[in-house]
């Protein structure tokens, strides 16, 4: 047992999982703050299912999964955000429609191929390849760079889109940036934590952080820190107990959220 763990922790599998997981946790939580506040919390869920369907179709038709799914998921993200603004179908309903339809398409397309549905739905940390690491580092670098460059405008578009538009800013551009970055993060992230659980990375850290901090900067920073913390802890715990890492992340996130909510309640009661 100890030898097994030693190999796991010193080997490249663990290093790969560590790099990919930390970077994804940071990206997802940063984008998550804006998505949760703009009431698009479920978009990660919808996109991951589309990503699953796209990968299944790509494998079934013999195309490169990533090259096929990435543009498709970006397009979906873009349309979902636009749809929610303009159309008669409300955002939450639109996301639910896309989400379930994609899952159905994926399930049918995956039949007869050698796709391991379970690893797509629940992810597998140890299945992270060298290629995944390179891709994740690239995606995270772009996401973090854009996030830092546009940080003040991302705050503005999240807090008061109308004011930004009235001042000659272009909220549509920054919304599109958020949508595209979310799409990329989801596509890359679902290989690690799975289609069913990727939205937990987007949802939980911001929700917990919002209960602890009152400024936007505080929430963004805390979300990133909490996200990395729960990933690292869950990774170690899951390897020791030999259970699903993504499930561990979600349960730990839930625990942190519970703690944060309790803290908030106590604070309010005391004040």
């Amino acid at each position, binding site marked *: 047992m100890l030898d097994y763990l030693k190999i796991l922790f010193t080997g490249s599998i663990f290093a790969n999982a560590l790099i990919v997981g930390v970077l994804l946790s940071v990206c997802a939580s940063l984008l998550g703050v804006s998505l949760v506040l703009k009431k698009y919390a479920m978009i990660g869920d919808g996109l991951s299912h589309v990503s699953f369907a796209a990968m299944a179709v790509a494998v079934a038709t013999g195309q490169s999964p990533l090259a096929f799914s990435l543009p498709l998921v970006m397009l979906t993200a873009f349309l979902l955000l636009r749809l929610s603004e303009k159309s008669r179908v409300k955002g939450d309903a639109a996301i639910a429609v896309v989400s379930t339809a994609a899952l159905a398409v994926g399930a049918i397309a995956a039949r007869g191929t050698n796709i391991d549905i379970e690893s797509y739905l629940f992810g597998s940390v140890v299945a992270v390849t060298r290629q995944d690491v390179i891709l994740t580092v690239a995606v995270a670098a772009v996401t973090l760079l854009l996030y830092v*460059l546009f940080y*003040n405008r991302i705050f503005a578009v999240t*807090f008061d889109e109308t004011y930004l538009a*009235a001042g000659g800013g272009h909220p549509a551009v920054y919304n599109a940036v958020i949508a595209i970055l979310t799409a990329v993060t989801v596509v890359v992230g679902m290989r690690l934590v799975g289609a069913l659980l990727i939205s937990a990375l987007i949802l939980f850290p911001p929700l917990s952080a*919002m209960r602890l901090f009152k*400024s936007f900067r505080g929430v963004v920073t805390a979300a990133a820190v909490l996200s990395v913390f729960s990933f690292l802890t869950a990774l170690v715990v899951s390897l020791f107990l030999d259970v699903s890492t993504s499930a561990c992340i979600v349960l730990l996130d839930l625990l942190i959220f519970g703690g944060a909510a309790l803290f908030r309640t106590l604070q309010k009661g005391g004040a």
Partner: protein
Amino acid sequence: MALLTCENLCLAYDKKVVLSGLSFTVERGNCLCVVGENGSGKSTLMKALLGLLPVAGGTISFGEGLSRKEIAYLPQQSVFQENFPASVREVVLSGRLSRKGFLSFYNREDRQTAERYMEKLGILSLEDSSFQTLSGGQRQRVLLARALSSEPELLLIDEPTTGLDPVMTGDFYDLLEEIVSLGKTVIMVTHDTAAALRYATHILHLHNRPLFFGSSEAYQNSAVGRKYLGK
């Protein structure tokens, strides 16, 4: 040329005309109050002036080199969601964004300007407080500080006294008087006609079309004004 000129403006929502045949001008230093009943097209006009609603007919044109970046806006308070994490400082600083180019990092000038207006409006001590925990009057000061931080030529104000108690309303009008005395041009949409008359240099009375446009003295003596003011 006037700072703002609207000519034969027609505005519509979903192809349904809300406001038509509207022509008026705003000169630098004017305080124009737009009055009228609910559904008279006041808010629609505000949206169009902000560039949020395309005009269905006629034109809105800016003069004296005014660009959209020099227009600031004080929105109604109901538009903000509960529990949004934002400090007073963050909200006020975001007013500087319209002055920024592609890169939007705040520099020392931005921070000093924001601080100056926070001080002027008496909210500097609240700068680290959460925007959402403030009272209605304090929030309005924060939003006003945000608008003024962009050092605008033209300030658009939408129903400023909605949701404020009488004391806060009085405070707001004191602030408004100060802004007008600084030489800022103001266009304010309000249902509070009596108060509007005290501060406005000009009145535009709407009822899906202009019923009156002219100076506030002329309005008080006009048939529309007398009827609306109950004299």
